[in-house]
């Protein structure tokens, strides 16, 4: 009996391209490539024809020319004479600023609400469920506008705080809530390097000291772990850690001459002077993104905690571990594995949703490069392409960093 698996030996026929599984995928891919190339060529030729008709060309020269508009909240030096490129960089930094701030606060809100949704207390549970449902089901744009309106329509003007006998007192005498934004004291150094306020070197030193404290506490924890492994007794590290964090900071503050620049109600008759002004758009965007995304994170946290099987809690209790330690030593580390992947995508969402800044006039990258620069120069294609490129890079970087973290947290199976 001859085998049936011998390939047919006849000559090649054209119909085999579609009917023979050996060639079919090749044929389909060639067709797909041709269709794709035709489509791209069609779009490109349309683009070229349209640009010719409008007398335009693709060029990124406009980035070097003067922007000609002011930005009220900047992290780096900027004025209306600066280039469009610098305006875009200001926008990028503002986007990153609000994204980082919102990620931190959204996580805090989300974890609190998610844990409270599992509380034994019926009322608290229901309140948190209401919070989650209300904030998840209403568009974030509406939340941003509502909070911006609260800032601008309900809070008083800066004038209310001015003069010897102001209408309203500042919170604690140092924080002024106005419809333009919030004025808080800003720290500066009187006797550090450079002497003046603008010296960034002092802040670098502060950062370096903080990083040093961080590594020192890690070292203390590790040596405590080692000692516990060896002797079974864990040395007390709480006070030492506290000291490592605070003593260097206090010493540094004394050495550098830390001082606070307070909002001054008497310096000017029309506006508050001094202090750090956090603009209303930034606060509206920050707060709205935090509570909106916090509701989503709360659901992720709840699902993560519920995903840890009850047997784990019971096993820990059977070993005689106290309930609070069960949560921190057994449940949370396992829940974290479930929580982190959706958390990453929430952080990505915050970054992308920060582009709604344009609705309240916060100068992020979408508002500077995609808004004013685009309208002033008319370079629509270039601006939108750069904008997309920026968000694409940010998204890829965040997901890459978080994936590394995620894989380090993953269950190590042998």
């Amino acid at each position, binding site marked *: 009996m001859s085998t049936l698996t011998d390939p047919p030996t006849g000559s090649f026929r054209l119909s085999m391209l*579609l009917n023979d599984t050996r060639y079919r*995928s090749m044929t*389909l*891919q060639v067709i*797909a*490539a041709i269709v*794709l190339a035709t489509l791209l060529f069609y*779009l490109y030729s*349309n*683009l070229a*024809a*349209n*640009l010719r*008709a409008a007398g335009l060309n693709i060029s990124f020269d406009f980035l070097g020319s003067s922007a000609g508009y002011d930005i009220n909240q900047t992290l780096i030096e900027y004025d209306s004479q600066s280039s469009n490129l610098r305006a875009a960089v200001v926008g990028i930094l503002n986007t990153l600023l609000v994204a980082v701030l919102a990620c931190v606060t959204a996580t805090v809100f989300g974890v609190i609400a998610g844990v409270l949704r599992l*509380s*034994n*207390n*019926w*009322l*608290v549970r229901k*309140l948190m469920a209401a919070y989650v*449902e*209300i904030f*998840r*089901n*209403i*568009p*974030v*744009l*509406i939340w941003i*506008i*509502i909070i911006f*309106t609260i800032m601008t*329509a309900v809070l008083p003007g800066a004038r209310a705080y001015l003069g010897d006998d102001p209408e309203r007192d500042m919170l604690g005498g140092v924080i002024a809530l106005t419809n333009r934004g919030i004025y808080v004291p800003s720290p500066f150094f009187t006797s550090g390097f450079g002497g003046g306020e603008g010296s960034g070197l002092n802040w670098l030193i502060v950062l370096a000291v903080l990083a040093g404290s961080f590594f020192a506490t890690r070292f203390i924890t590790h040596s405590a772990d080692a000692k516990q492994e060896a002797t079974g007794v864990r040395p007390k590290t709480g006070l030492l850690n506290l000291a490592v964090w605070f003593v260097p900071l206090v010493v540094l503050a004394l050495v550098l001459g830390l001082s606070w620049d307070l909002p001054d109600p008497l310096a000017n008759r029309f506006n508050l002077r001094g202090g750090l002004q956090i603009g209303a758009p930034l606060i509206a965007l920050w707060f709205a993104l935090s509570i909106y995304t916090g509701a989503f994170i709360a659901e992720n946290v709840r699902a993560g905690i519920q995903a840890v099987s009850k047997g784990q809690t019971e096993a820990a209790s059977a070993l005689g571990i106290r309930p609070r330690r069960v949560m921190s030593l057994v449940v949370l580390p396992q829940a974290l594995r479930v929580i982190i992947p959706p958390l990453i995508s929430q952080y990505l969402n915050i970054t*992308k*949703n920060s*582009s*709604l800044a*344009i*609705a309240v006039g916060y100068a992020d990258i*979408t508002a500077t490069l*995609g808004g004013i620069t*685009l309208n002033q120069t008319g370079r*629509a*294609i270039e601006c*939108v392409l750069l*904008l*997309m490129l920026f*968000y*694409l890079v940010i*998204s*890829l970087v965040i997901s890459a960093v978080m994936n590394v973290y995620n894989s380090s947290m993953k269950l190590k199976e042998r």
Partner: protein
Amino acid sequence: MSDTHAQSVAYVRETAIPPAPAPVNAAGPVKWMRDNLFATWANALLTVAALYVLYLILASTLPWIFGGLWTTSSLAECREILQGKSAACFSVLSERWNQLLFGFKYPSELYWRPGIAFVLLFIAFAPVLFFDLPRKLLILTALYPFVAYWLIWGGSILIPIMALAGFVGGYVVYSKLVTRNFAAGFFGGIAAAAVIWIIGDYIVGALASDTPWLTPVPSRDLGGFMLNLMLGVTCVSLSIPLGIALALGRQSSMPLIKWICVVFIEFIRGVPLITLLFVASVMLAYFFPPEATVDLFLRVVIMITMFSSAYIAEVIRGGLAALPKGQYEAGDSLGLDYAQSMRLIILPQALKISIPGIVNIAVGLFKDTTLVSVISMFDLVGMIRGPILASTDWNGVYWELLGFAALLFFVVCYGISQYSQWLERRLATDHR
């Protein structure tokens, strides 16, 4: 029996003691409150704090809502009547009701048309959402897009009829040819539809009268909540088939197809919707032929559909990946080809798993339709921030308007998510 021990004990109980009610603090509402509200000291404190927060919220909003005025004609008049009392001025809603729903340019004598389209929407969606209804009703769903188009945009009735004829012709050819070969049916169907549309284009050009039954309304006159609903419904319906195709493409063993899908999905998911709307408003026109004028509504629909199809593709890919490999192998071993095994075995199961995810995307997309206000389309948010708050009568009525918008979106989105939970329970065929 009763006197068994009569000699040895003085008294023997002959009947059971009637069950006593539980002590007051071990049953009923008191026990419930002790367990759920005041279990520990910390818990009691939390309860009191929560009650206080609830009181603060209700005490400030309830009088404001119930003291609201509904019949004045401007904010100034409201303030005059209220005399400094804090209460809502809902008159803006009653006076601008039509603008909030239909936008400020849609002809007021034609409001009945989108109204009917909205009512028909429920009839069209009912057989899709509830499986118990007779399957024949799906014909209404298939007819709905054409009816709704004709009602909302008006114009010659020949246009939707010819479009429908194209789909019907394509489907007939497809069902004739598909018994032999899926590819032949698929491409034959597309070719037949295209032929009918080209012929139909000439027929419409030749026969359409200058005075159609329904006055045509241009797309730029659409607005209000109607615009949000239209964008949401259109884009979700269009993006589900596209999402399925992308998800299958991403799973494909053909590298070129796979990479096209991966690049498309990852690119779209990496950029915010706003940038895609910028593309629609300022950039997309460059990619159409110079003589074509594609209106903004269509451009926005294209971009939002691309956006949501990438997300839906990822959800469906999750569903495909969750299926056990045995299902794929079972399809192969039955001798089904790729199209058949996908249609009959894989997709029904994968889509069932993906339903909650797809509904989440749909809710998110519906909320995101408010972003079109940024590119100066007058949807609900655009109407509120633009024409209504800018008018001299209503400048400063923030909370009533924003609260109304929030309420509308909440009702729709919460309703959809409740439906999805119901559906999940209905479809749960695994045994627990």
